[in-house]
Every structure is written in structure tokens, then in C-alpha cells.
């Protein structure tokens, strides 16, 4: 131990440097936290929040019950029970659609997988509940979330032939997220 380190040790030099750092933070106090319930962060544009099922502008559900979202989901959140549209044997829809949001990790793979863009991610995140069963959502609840988060709906496509199931929604018709 040379003389300089010895002097530093007996004068608690390192501790004083640390205390200077904390003091400078006190003097130049600028809070980096927010008073959360009263003030909220601005979310980034690509924020991935609560999932929702969407509708066309005439109110029909977009979902064609193809089950691709269920296959894409890494944590098995989604369960689709697919069925024929009554009276239209070539068309299918999801008779039942469940999401167990306790497991969802908000990766967005289901949204990517959906061929008709029937799923959307909203900007909602305040979904804390007292009973976790309330996070097991059915189709009506998911459609309701979609209705309140995406007020601008996409046009229903005019189809070439009534026997062709409607896939492939053009990109320009993607629903706009409210800002």
C-alpha cells in the first residue's frame, strides 16, 4: 500500500466520492418516475397491449375460425371452436373463441398469424383484476374490447364468388389504431 492509497483510506476518500454523487443527485433533483395513476407515460406507437377481436363495418365478425392463431400462440392462450356459418356451407366462423389472458405474453404472434386480420392489439394495459378467472375471456368480451378500441372499422370485401371464403384483406384497409 503506497502513501497515496493510505491517505485515501484513512480519509474515507472513496466514501466521500460516493456521497458527493448522491448529493449531486439531491441538488440536481429531477424525478425519473411518474405518479402513475395520476399521470401516465405516452405509449410508443407499436405498443402491444390487450388483444381484441375485430369486426367489419357492417358488424360481422372478421374471424373465419381457421385456428391459425391457436397454432401460432407459444403459450396456448387461445382456444378456437370453429363451425360452418349456418346456411353458408363454404364459410366458417369461430363458434367459440376463448383467451386465457393470464398466460399471454403479448408477443403478437397471433395477430401476425391471422390471415384476415381479425385480431388486433389495443393500447389497454390496466387489466389488473381481483379474481384471475376474470381474465379468461370469451368471444363476446374480446369483441367488446375490439369495439371500444377500434372505432374505425374495415370495409367488408366484396367477394368474387359467394362460395369462396373471404381471405386476404388489402393492407390499406388495415384498421387504424386510435392514437
Amino acid at each position, binding site marked *: 500500500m503506497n502513501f497515496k492509497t493510505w491517505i485515501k483510506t484513512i480519509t474515507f476518500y472513496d466514501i466521500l466520492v460516493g456521497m458527493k454523487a448522491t448529493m449531486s443527485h439531491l441538488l440536481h*433533483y429531477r424525478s425519473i418516475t411518474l405518479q402513475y395513476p395520476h399521470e401516465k407515460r405516452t405509449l410508443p406507437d407499436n405498443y402491444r397491449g390487450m388483444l381484441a377481436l375485430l369486426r367489419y363495418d357492417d358488424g360481422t365478425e372478421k374471424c373465419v375460425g381457421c385456428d391459425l392463431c391457436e397454432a401460432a400462440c407459444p403459450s396456448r392462450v387461445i382456444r378456437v371452436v370453429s363451425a360452418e356459418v349456418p346456411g353458408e356451407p363454404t364459410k366458417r366462423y369461430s363458434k367459440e373463441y376463448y383467451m386465457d389472458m393470464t398466460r399471454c405474453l403479448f408477443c403478437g404472434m397471433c395477430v401476425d398469424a391471422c390471415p384476415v386480420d381479425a385480431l388486433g392489439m389495443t393500447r389497454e394495459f390496466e387489466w389488473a383484476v381481483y379474481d384471475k378467472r376474470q381474465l379468461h375471456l370469451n368471444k363476446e368480451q374480446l369483441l367488446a374490447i375490439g369495439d371500444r378500441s377500434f372505432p374505425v372499422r374495415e370495409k367488408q370485401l366484396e367477394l368474387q364468388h359467394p362460395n369462396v371464403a373471404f381471405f386476404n384483406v388489402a393492407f390499406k384497409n388495415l384498421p387504424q389504431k386510435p392514437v
Partner: protein
Amino acid sequence: MTELSLRLAVTFAQIMAEMGIVVITIATMTYFERKVLGWMQDRMGPMEVGPYGILQPVADGIKLFFKEDITPAGANKAMFALAPILTVVTALIGFAVIPFGPNITMDVFGITVKPFVVSDINIGILYILAFASIGTYGIILGGWSSNSKYSLLGGLRAAAQVISYELNVGLAIVGVILLAGSLSIVEITEAQTGGFWHWFIWGARPDGFFPIHTQIFAFVVFVISAMAETNRIPFDLPEAESELVAGFMTEYSGMRFAFFVSAEYANMTLVSCVAASLFLGGWNAPYPGTIFGYVGLEQLAWVEHIAWFAAKVYFFLFVFVWIRATLPRLRYDQLMRFGWKVMLPIALANVIVTAIAVYFFPRG
């Protein structure tokens, strides 16, 4: 008979006033600590209750008062109940000998009272040391009687730590006692009148400026050891959250927990008062006399004295919080090595050097 009861009444009023001040200080400290700690860490601290969270101590008090009082199964009931009381009483009782204003006397209905010290006993500093040691029993009992391994470990650590560091506190004080020639805190403070160079941290003799009797090493040892004795970060091993949940107070809830916490803050305030009185001249202003005295308001000088005392005490309390915001917790062997191999030799050497200096250059 009437004189005795009058004396009792006056003393009781004094005790109540002092207790009120101490309790207000504790409540302020709980708020102040969280706030300053938050600011130092770029947070806001309590903000919800009242403007800028200023009513947070009140809310905490109400909450703790109405919390369920749980006694763990297998706990020693009597000891479990006794421990927090012992801790808080010994922490508060030390304030009786702290003079927080000048040593003047007042006549109340024919009785002579010293308004700024409850009891000016001639062994004040020994009294404080004695009760600080009894306070350790509260911690050890609380740890042992809870029937929980974390509490027991916390209690054992507290025992070892407080014993090792109390030695250093005692030895650091010896130098001051040698200089003042008295164990009464009032007399020790009075021996430091007349400018900051007479404070025992510098230790100039009453007739000069040269700091021949400096106690600065004792001061450093005292402050560090006092921090360890009050179980403050970086010496908070008895309640190390990351290892022992909350140490000796793991099993306590409600008002008993509040007792432990207020005892910690009361101890902090007490050692700040002692450090201010012993080393920084207590109620004395850092210049000779008082400003009120110079402008001819001699009867108001006590306001200035009390203000200086409060400023010194709050400075120490701020340093406690500041250190807490800066330093991480020591490891146990580091704590013991620091106490016995660093602090103790310095304190001992300081006693010897001061004794020699006082012998060859006696004061006054």
C-alpha cells in the same frame, strides 16, 4: 407536600413537552428520510397523502395502530410483549439529560427549574450509555422470543454488533470527558462556549485559538460507531432485509412494530443530540455570544441557542440519511474487523494522546 407535588407537576410538564418534541422529530424523520432518500435516488418519495405526501407519517401511524397484532405460535408471550416496550422506553429516556437550550434557571411558583433540560444529573453521559445498553436487551429479547430463526439470527447479530461498537462509543467519549472534566452533558456543553474553535471537535483551549486538544478522531469514531449502534445502514446487519427478512422485528406487526421503528428513529435523534452536545458545542453558536445578545435582546438569546442546537441535530440526521443513500451494507466479518481492528485502536490512541495533552497543557 405541596412543594413536592408542584415539583412533580412541573417535571411532568417538562417531560411531556420534551416527549412531544421528540415524537414530532421522529414523525418528521420518517417522512424526511423517505423524501431525501427518494430525491437522492431520482424518485419522488411519498406523494399521495396530503400535498407532497406531508401527511404520510400520520397515515402510517393510523394504519399501524389499526393493524392486527399477531403473536407467533410458540413465542414467549411475556418477553414478546416486553421487547418493544423496553426498546422504545430506553430510546426515549435518554433525552432526559440532553440540554437543548442554554443552562439558565427559571422560577415557577417558587421552584427553581431549568427549562431546557429535564434533569441535569452529574453523570448524564453514563446514564445515556447505560440505557443504550439496556435497549440492546429489547432487540435480543425480541429476536429470541419470536420463535423464528430469522429473528434469532438478527438478535444475535445485534448483540455482537452493539457490544463491539458500544466500546468505541464509550472510548470516544472519554476524550471529551477528559477535556471538560465532567460527566454532565450540560457542563460539557458549557465548556465549549465562545466560538467554534472551542468546540471539542477542534478543542482550542479557552484562552487561545490553537486546536491543541482536538477530538476530531474521537468525533469520527463516535459518529461511525453511533451509526452502528443504532443499526443504521451501512451497519444494519440485525435487520438485513436481503438475508433476514427484517431481522429481530420479522414477527412483529402493528403497534409493536411501530415501537421498534420509532425506537430506531429516537435512537438516531439521541445520538445526534449527543454528538452535537459533545463535539459540536451543543447549543453554542459558532461565534462568541449571540446575535440577540449583541443587539441588546439578551432575554431572547435562548431562541438562537435552541435554533443552533436544532440545526446541528438535524445536520446529523441528514448525514445519517445521506450515508444510507450512499453506502451498501457491510459484510459481517468486515463489520467486526472494522470495529475491533480500526475503530478501537483509534479510540484508544485518542484517549492516551488526549490524556497526555491535557496533562501538559491543562485547560484554563
